[in-house]
């Protein structure tokens, strides 16, 4: 009984961490611009795919990882500069459609350039499962969890202690006020996309050894990452991580105890429930609008 439960828990936490990283990416962009970046999933896919391709071509792992992360971050920057910035004053609907368009474009280009096959990345420290409390845990899972926590910590330091991070936070709270105190909000927006792309890529690389990656890996990951972000209230790091973990574990439990073919429906049922009953998510702030 317990080992089985723990097994589901471990796999849930692992995949939940990747959702958490995706959720963080969504949250950062949403907070600086109000845009929901439907292309976030593609950033995750790019990280995994590019690293896998490079490693497969003989590039040493550390270099492949760095290369993939940097390349994806660049894609994020390019995306912001070319399609988000020109439309930054458009309505929410338009921006959503633009990011959907970007996601399609990125995915299509990857499909053309790298084909439809699946690729894998070698696990960072081998694939001998560790037995913990009667259930087995892949070493890669520890990497996923560990790096996620490290990133969350780094982001907390970045947003809390550095000038740039605080500038980004200021922009998210009140764009006009931030501009008035001299913050270049366009640069902040650009950086937020780059940062989110970077986080997405890291997440993709971390899970690629476990789940394999392909050109369409981004769709579901992106959508689920968004669900996790909304679950957490689209507010801050804590919410995103909590949302991701809760979602991952819920999915794993559903797959294990109820039905594995419906596990993909879990995030969407959850999002409907959350949006109906708790639209501000678990950690979202109360909002009052002035008419």
């Amino acid at each position: 009984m317990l080992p089985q439960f723990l097994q589901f828990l471990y796999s849930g936490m692992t995949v939940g961490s990747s959702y958490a990283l995706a959720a963080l990416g969504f949250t950062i962009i949403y907070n600086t611009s109000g845009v929901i970046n439907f292309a976030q999933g593609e950033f995750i896919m790019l990280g995994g795919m590019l690293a896998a391709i490079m490693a497969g071509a003989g590039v040493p792992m550390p270099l492949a990882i760095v290369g993939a992360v940097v390349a994806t971050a660049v894609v994020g920057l390019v995306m912001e500069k070319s399609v988000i910035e020109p439309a930054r004053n458009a309505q929410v609907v338009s921006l959503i459609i633009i990011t959907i368009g970007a996601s399609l474009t990125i995915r299509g280009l990857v499909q053309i350039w790298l084909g439809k096959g699946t690729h894998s990345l070698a696990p960072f420290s081998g694939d001998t499962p560790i037995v913990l409390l009667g259930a087995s845990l892949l070493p890669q899972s520890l990497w996923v969890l560990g790096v996620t926590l490290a990133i969350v910590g780094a982001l907390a330091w970045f947003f809390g202690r550095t000038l740039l991070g605080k500038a980004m936070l200021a922009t998210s709270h009140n764009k006009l006020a931030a501009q008035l105190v001299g913050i270049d909000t366009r640069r902040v927006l650009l950086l937020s996309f780059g940062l989110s792309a970077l986080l997405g890529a890291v997440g993709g690389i971390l899970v690629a050894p476990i789940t394999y990656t392909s050109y369409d890996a981004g769709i579901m990951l992106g959508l689920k990452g968004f669900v996790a972000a909304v679950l957490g209230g689209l507010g801050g790091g804590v919410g995103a991580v909590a949302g991701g973990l809760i979602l991952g574990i819920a999915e794993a439990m559903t797959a294990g105890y109820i039905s594995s073919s419906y596990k993909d429906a879990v995030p969407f049922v959850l999002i409907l429930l959350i949006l109906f009953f708790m639209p501000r998510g678990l950690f979202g702030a109360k909002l009052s609008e002035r008419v």
Partner: protein
Amino acid sequence: MKCLQSRHRGLLILALVLAVLPLVLPNAFYVDVAIRIALNAIVVIALNLLIGYTGQISLGHAGFYGLGAYASAALTTHFDWPPLAALAAGALATGLLAWVLARPVLKLKGHTLAMATLGLGIIISIVINNEGRWTGGPDGMSVPAFALAGITIAGETSWYIVAAVLLLLMTWLALNLIDSPVGRALQAIHGSEIAARVAGVDTTRFKVRVFVLSAVVASIAGSISAHYIGFITPGMAGFFHSIELVTMVVVGGMASVFGSIIGAALLTILPQLLQAFEGWEVVVFGVILMGTMIFMPKGLVPSIAQRLRSRRK
């Protein structure tokens, strides 16, 4: 364009085009594309009522389309229902589902509304994919021909007439709706929801109504398409199809009935043209979506209309 003349003019042109088209098209393949355009256009017009006129968003409308298609397919295949009854049942069930979910969903705005409709569409497509016993699962299922009172609709010509008539009907109904108190209420909800409420519009009720209407129309179009194409797959209810429908609305023109028809035409033909270039279809769709929203946010028909109007001045 609000005056009577203009509306009748548009309908007349449409009727003429539809009448002349089969005579001009070289072979059955093109007629098939025309039929698909017409059936898509019906859904897009209804979706535009929701998105363009009322200012809401739905990223899950293919789900309703799929429900209609699979209701027709399953009821006629597994239970020997007459096609019309299956269509009606599908429309009713879809309408009911939309009605139940509309109120909580439409309380949301912007990206949360987008997400909720997205989730809904995906849940429907997952269910269709999984319940293989009724739906044939990922491999899809075949659909018997549409027969009414002993007469079976078969062959391109008969189907073209059916599709053309339905498109004309939908266009007429939509144009009527827009130029009426209900239509103005919907547009007011888009323009300023608070002003609409103050004027006495029960905004929630109207949003629900147009949501249910567009869902039912999508379901009926799905049913008819199922009988026409003869074979359906879960992809019909999938996320990408929902995006295709939204693209047709957006590219053709928000808040434009004829724009919806143009949008449906352009984006039904496009995949046919790109069939040889796998992967490019997705890229082109993506580029079109981005380009339209950046350079022509109102869509093709309204932007052109605006440019013509300003040139006249």
